[in-house]
């Protein structure tokens, strides 16, 4: 039981990062109905930017996170302007956008390789002091606490943005019904650009958190596993649904940790993807998502 609770805590900590990452996917999907497969690469760039800030510029953690967040966000806006918007203007199919996003991911990873090399990197030890808190059978590290707190704060912030501000209203309206949103005077392209900023900023921070949680995890290729897991999270929770992304991410994190603990760890990924496949086949809208039918 003690082990289970401990793993639960670990799972929540990991899952919260998946959730943050999945939010990025879901935001863009909500507004454009496309899956941005460059998102994992943005996660990696965020983590790497933070590395440079921490190691080369030697700034504090908070500033590094802020820098990674802003850098990733701006990257997202650039990607929209350069890759996705031209496709929108052409009226291209959503598969085209998917393919382009794959291409962007490759380009970003290669560029990251050139700048940061291929060796896995670590954030300087002591960035977050090594301290533990014990409550009964469960031990939580300060690091895990910081990660969880950051994610919770960001999610609250996102919710406030979406629900209380004019911009958030525009994002939700455009995601709901772009035609009506146009009739209400909402500028589609600008709303999309901002959504990309938001989505990529969250992805960048997720990257930094991953780097913090796991020594030696920062590299241009770190996005790969997170990419597929993030996809699994939003499919589980329902594409385009924010609560769903969060729940899906948590489920992935907890599930992964428990599977490693209780089942053969080398099959961990296969179980995850097998589940993903089943969910897609049986209930493609996920547990919470809504079917947006555009048929006959």
């Amino acid at each position, binding site marked *: 039981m003690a082990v289970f609770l401990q793993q639960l805590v670990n799972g929540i900590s990991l899952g919260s990062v998946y959730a943050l990452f999945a939010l990025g996917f879901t935001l863009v999907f909500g507004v454009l109905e496309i899956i941005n497969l460059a998102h994992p690469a943005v996660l990696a760039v965020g983590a790497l930017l933070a590395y440079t800030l921490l190691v080369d510029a030697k700034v504090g953690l908070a500033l590094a996170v802020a820098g990674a967040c802003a850098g990733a966000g701006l990257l997202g806006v650039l990607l929209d302007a350069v890759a996705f918007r031209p496709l929108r203007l052409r009226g291209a199919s959503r598969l085209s956008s998917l393919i382009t996003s794959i291409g962007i991911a490759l380009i970003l990873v*290669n560029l990251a390789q050139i700048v940061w090399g291929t060796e896995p990197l670590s954030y300087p030890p002591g960035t977050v002091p090594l301290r533990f808190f014990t409550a009964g059978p469960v031990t939580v590290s300060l690091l895990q606490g910081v990660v969880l707190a950051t994610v919770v704060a960001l999610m609250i912030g996102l919710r406030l943005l979406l629900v209380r501000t004019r911009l958030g209203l525009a994002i939700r309206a455009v995601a709901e019904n772009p035609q009506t949103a146009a009739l209400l005077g909402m500028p589609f392209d600008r709303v999309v650009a901002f959504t990309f900023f938001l989505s990529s900023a969250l992805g960048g921070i997720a990257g930094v958190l991953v780097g913090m949680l796991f020594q030696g995890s920062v590299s241009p290729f770190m996005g790969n596993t997170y990419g*597929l897991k993030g996809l699994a999270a939003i*499919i589980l929770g329902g594409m385009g649904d924010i609560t769903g992304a969060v729940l899906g991410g948590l489920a992935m994190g907890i599930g992964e940790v428990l599977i490693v603990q209780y089942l053969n760890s080398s099959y961990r990924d296969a179980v995850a993807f097998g589940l993903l496949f089943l969910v897609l086949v049986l209930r493609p809208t996920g547990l919470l998502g809504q079917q947006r039918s555009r048929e006959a």
Partner: protein
Amino acid sequence: MNAVADLYAAYSTLVLFAGVAALLALSIYVTLMAGQLSLGNAALATIGGYTAAILTKTYHAALWPALLAGAALATVVAVLIGIPCLRLRGIYLAIATLAFGEVVRVAALNLTITGGALGLVGIAPLVSFPHVYGALAVAAFFFYRLERSRTGRALAAIREDEAAAQAMGIRVTAYKVLAFSIAGFIAGLAGGLAVHFTYLINPAQASFGEAVTILTYAVFGGTGTFIGPILGGMALTVLPEALRFLKEYRLLLDGAILVLVTTYLPNGVLDPVFAGRLGPVFAGRLGPLLRWRRRA
């Protein structure tokens, strides 16, 4: 004398790779003909490869029975995967096939019969130019006839508008399954062929990266006619070798190809040729000759 032999050996493998790439590109093309993007063909090729390798290596089977067995198994798996995925639209199908690919990769990584992470080595060199290019020629001829047949038109109709195709009495589900099974067969065969001139196989061949590479072949060459994927596969196998000094930028170039071609040449690099925009020489006759269709 040795140097010449080495040079020949090096190039002959490249030529064989180009042929295999063309086959793999055709396997993704056939499902695209029906409007389905399947990213599981690398995994299907891996299944075909492992099967053929195990048969020739452990059971000392003859080449063609082993190849056909591999292709048959891949076909069966493709159909088993395809049927539940049939209701999925575009992006969901792509993700489901991706998930399937990952399951195959992890399975290959863990099963003893597939040799685990190292895969299988020391496979007999049974395949040479006539095998690969014989198979390619037969496949090309098959596609040439397919595009002029009632079946080919049905697939094209499904791609354009599934509901309208159904209204024409076309049994959409059956045709999608057919496309999947053809894809499985060709991919499985390609995998089996490759194994016997590279002498090894490992789970990495079923990875997301490999699946993306196959997609790149089709996108680059264009999906308007079967010649596109063939040329795309060959070109993208040979070019990187010719441009070997750019090896560090391999991913970037792949990515750039995907982005640029998708944005500006949605029907592939050969689009201007087939669409008749390259002046009097081709004067738009090559297109209709090859039953070229606008896609994207």
